[in-house]
């Protein structure tokens, strides 16, 4: 695939790693905010190949993982309605709520469907006027424009059987909260590439100022991640702190104008709870007054739902980068991808699932087979 495979070149990757090994003279703790980056790092084994002093702290960049428990329970309640066709991205189906997950609701007779794009849910609403189509609108700023367009379209088409359960989160307030938290060890951030494709990176400039922390906009392929890390270490070693764009083929400072306009006309900023972390002020979006009639929370009157987190789950600490998954007392025993206690074990991008799938408790990750083929 063009503009994808070239950024996986193993020879260049090895040389970039060599460069990083030379550059880093001291230990540094860098947080990657994006679940997609976490996935790429673990999947490609990048963190195993970095100098031992460079620690990658996996941030709360997995929208699946940070969707508040109440929101999952609301989704479960709505999906159980017989007249509802509940549409969601695949990632959300196995996230445990207080008692069950959407797959369970499906097995109990709920009409739960995976869609690739929110517009597919709008199409379903058009084709099935007798059903109530509800779309689970989760995600960071990357996904928000798509979800906004779905609601906008529903309004244009005059659909009264379409609604959205909105649980959007924004990255800059999360970075702010992490840096301001007592005991924070993060010294620099890899900003999420595609979030910045939409929002640009001008929002991060005040954060760089306030905390004197380097922030480097980074992509997802191995070479992109290595480049982001390399540029971050360069700044750290030089005592510098600025915003840098290492994903220039997909990111500009101002971002995507039309997308931002749509966001402004459909959503408004609100305080949002992040699962395992708590409420971060101004860190979320909800439908604004003009589009409130499409809000599934109101339509299905699920605003008051009591929740019950597993007492054994340490997702929150993992999400804040305070605990590595394999330091959690129930990691791999009571909590596995088959029997997840929290969202970080369910989602592919969750740090716990990534660690488990990569066998990070199983064996020495530097295993070298003897034969060459």
């Amino acid at each position, binding site marked *: 695939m063009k503009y*994808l495979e*070239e950024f996986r070149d193993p020879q260049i990757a090895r040389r970039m790693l060599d460069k990083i090994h030379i550059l880093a003279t001291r230990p540094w703790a860098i947080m990657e905010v994006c679940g997609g980056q976490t996935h790429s790092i673990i999947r490609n084994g990048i963190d195993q190949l970095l100098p031992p002093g460079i620690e990658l702290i996996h941030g709360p960049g997995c929208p699946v993982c940070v969707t508040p428990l109440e929101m999952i329970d609301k989704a479960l309640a709505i999906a159980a309605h017989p007249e509802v066709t509940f549409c969601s991205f695949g990632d959300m189906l196995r996230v445990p709520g207080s008692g069950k997950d959407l797959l369970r609701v499906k097995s109990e007779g709920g009409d739960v469907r995976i869609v690739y794009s*929110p517009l*597919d849910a709008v199409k379903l609403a058009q084709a099935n006027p007798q059903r109530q189509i509800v779309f689970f609108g989760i995600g*960071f700023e990357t*996904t928000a*424009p*798509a979800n906004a367009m779905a609601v906008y379209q529903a309004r244009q088409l005059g659909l009264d059987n379409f609604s959205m359960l909105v649980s959007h989160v924004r990255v800059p307030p999360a970075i702010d909260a992490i840096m301001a938290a007592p005991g924070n060890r993060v010294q620099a951030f890899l900003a999420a590439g595609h979030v910045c494709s939409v929002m640009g990176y001008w929002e991060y400039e005040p954060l760089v100022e306030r905390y004197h922390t380097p922030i480097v906009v980074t992509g997802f392929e191995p070479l992109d991640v290595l480049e982001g890390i390399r540029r971050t270490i360069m700044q750290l070693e030089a005592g510098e702190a600025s915003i840098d764009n290492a994903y220039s*083929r997909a990111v500009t400072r101002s971002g995507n104008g039309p997308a931002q306009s749509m966001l402004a006309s459909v959503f408004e900023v609100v305080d949002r709870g992040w699962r395992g972390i708590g409420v971060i002020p101004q860190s979320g979006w909800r439908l604004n007054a003009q589009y409130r009639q499409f809000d599934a929370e109101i339509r299905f009157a699920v605003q008051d739902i009591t929740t019950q987190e597993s007492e054994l789950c340490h997702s929150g600490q993992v999400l804040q980068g305070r605990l590595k998954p394999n330091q959690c007392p129930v990691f791999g025993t009571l909590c596995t991808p088959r029997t997840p206690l929290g969202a970080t074990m369910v989602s592919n991008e969750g740090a716990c699932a990534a660690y488990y799938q990569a066998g990070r408790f199983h064996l020495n990750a530097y295993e070298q087979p003897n034969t060459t083929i």
Partner: protein
Amino acid sequence: MCLGIPGRVTEIFEADGVRMGRVDFAGIVKEVCLAYVPEIEIGDYTIVHVGFAITQLDEASAQESLRLFAELGTLTHELNPMQDG
């Protein structure tokens, strides 16, 4: 958070008042909403996330990045030919 992959725009049309198109990913063709990339043309590359083009891919920038990456490695090798990775 952001599974977005690059593809080439092969068709542009309008459906229900929204700018749509077809994008080719190494032979896989998917209908994609192009509302957020109003200036994109057939033959251009774009990054697609959940059925939406979120940005035009800057091909010149991509080539430049690759050139720099390749060069990076060469320089390292010249400076430290005995260095083990």
